[in-house]
């Protein structure tokens, strides 16, 4: 279990309980967090689940696989802390993590 805080582009924060093994994208979608589309449902095929991860937690995430890096490379407004949220699996270690969602995924 972990508490994850989603900050949308207006600065509104939502702190949600996430179960281990769920993805950061799934928790957002099930709780209607704005700014994440996740069209492919987590298949790493659409790049519409782009988020910015709190720097302090970046090192705790398993590094992106080649597909994710390659998809992100073409997303809008990518930064060093960009990740595809469907590829981040929740674990106890992520408790307290903050992620910021962009205004739009397109």
């Amino acid at each position, binding site marked *: 279990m972990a508490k994850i805080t989603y900050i949308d582009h207006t600065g509104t924060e939502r702190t949600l309980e996430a179960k281990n093994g*769920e993805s950061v994208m799934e928790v957002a979608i099930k709780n209607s967090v704005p700014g994440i589309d996740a*069209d492919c449902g987590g*298949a*790493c*095929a659409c790049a519409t689940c782009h988020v910015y991860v709190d720097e302090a937690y970046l090192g705790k995430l398993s590094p992106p696989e080649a*597909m994710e890096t390659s998809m992100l490379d*073409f997303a809008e407004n990518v930064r060093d802390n960009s990740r595809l949220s469907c590829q981040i699996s929740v674990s106890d270690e992520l408790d307290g993590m903050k992620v910021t969602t962009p205004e739009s995924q397109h």
Partner: protein
Amino acid sequence: MSRENLNCILVIGGGQAGAQALISLRQNGYEGALHLIAEEPFLPYQRPPLSKAYLKGEMAKERLAFKPQDWYESHNITLHLGVRADKIDRENHILHLQDGTELTYDALIIATGARPRPLKLEGADLKGVQDLRGLDDIDQLRPALKRGTRLVIIGAGYIGLEAAAAARSLGAEVTVLEMAERVLARVTSPVISTFFTQLHERQGVSIRTKVRTDCLMGKAGHVSGVKLSTGEELPADIVLVGIGVLPNQELAEAAGILCETGICVDEAGRTSDPDIFAAGDCTSRPLIHYDRRGRLESVHNAIEQGKCVAAALMEKPGPKLDVPWFWSDQYHIKLQIAGLSQGYENFIVRGDPTSERFAVFYFKAGKLLGVDAINAPPEFLVTKKLIISGSALAPEELQDTSLSMKEIAAKYAA
């Protein structure tokens, strides 16, 4: 009908398109009554994992649902699960449900999807002969798929091949039967067909093309084998049928709504009746990047049309229409398709298929129609942009891997 008179919307079908319509209607500020009538007895769920992670047993059932039960409650959506919509009375604006319920509507959204094309052969009704469409199908199939189970798949389309890959990972012995001379013959080029044939063969799948199935054989009511037109008999514990789908348009057709192969809709998803909309696999829609109409079977299409319909009803601008796209996961391979390659005149290959990272671009009259990208997201993503920009580019440039896709995008899709 104007927004002020819009107090009750009914959505028929709880698939990707129906779910999206519900989500987008509430997001766009619709506050009136909203009902979902869904034949399957489940909360709306995603299908793509059914032939992938879910079939392999790597994904829990709860994770398939788009939204949890409490979302429907908090968004004031009335669910009629496990109930078919039987008849649309357009004159009186009433929808008749199979359980006798009559619901009045101001607007109706038909999102009835598609159903598997039935196998019209002797023995097709034996136990152990399965479709690949719904959660029920997979829940019946999976317990039977074990190490050594003899599985025969009739039809080598994407979903059949995905099931073959998943079944191999569970240790089943898999044979794929295809009538055409190559796998995926209807949807892609020989290069991609060969690539997937070799991939599956390396994984131990037996691929048999140019074969006709004569009948299915059974023992005590359960399938025991497949008989080919040559007389050859293949033993089988399970037979999966994946020979395409048919749009569920009968409900609309019976009500006199204009249909071709699919319910005819305009860009906003409106049918020939201004109070009735349709979205997803059941529609025939304008394909704006191709100056023609057609029926799509994809998540992208279902989401896009779900959003279009909701926007039109709320008199808001619809989403920017994307180039059609699709993906397929088999073993360690991700195929991403952008555009529609049907009717291509020539194609070029970028990269080396043996490296398992390459792309095939399709052209007609010098125009880029689409791409099949194997483990190659840049080719997939840039092709969408190239098709939207419509700029003429020389096939040779795409073939030249010393030019990155970023450079190509900068030159032609800026």
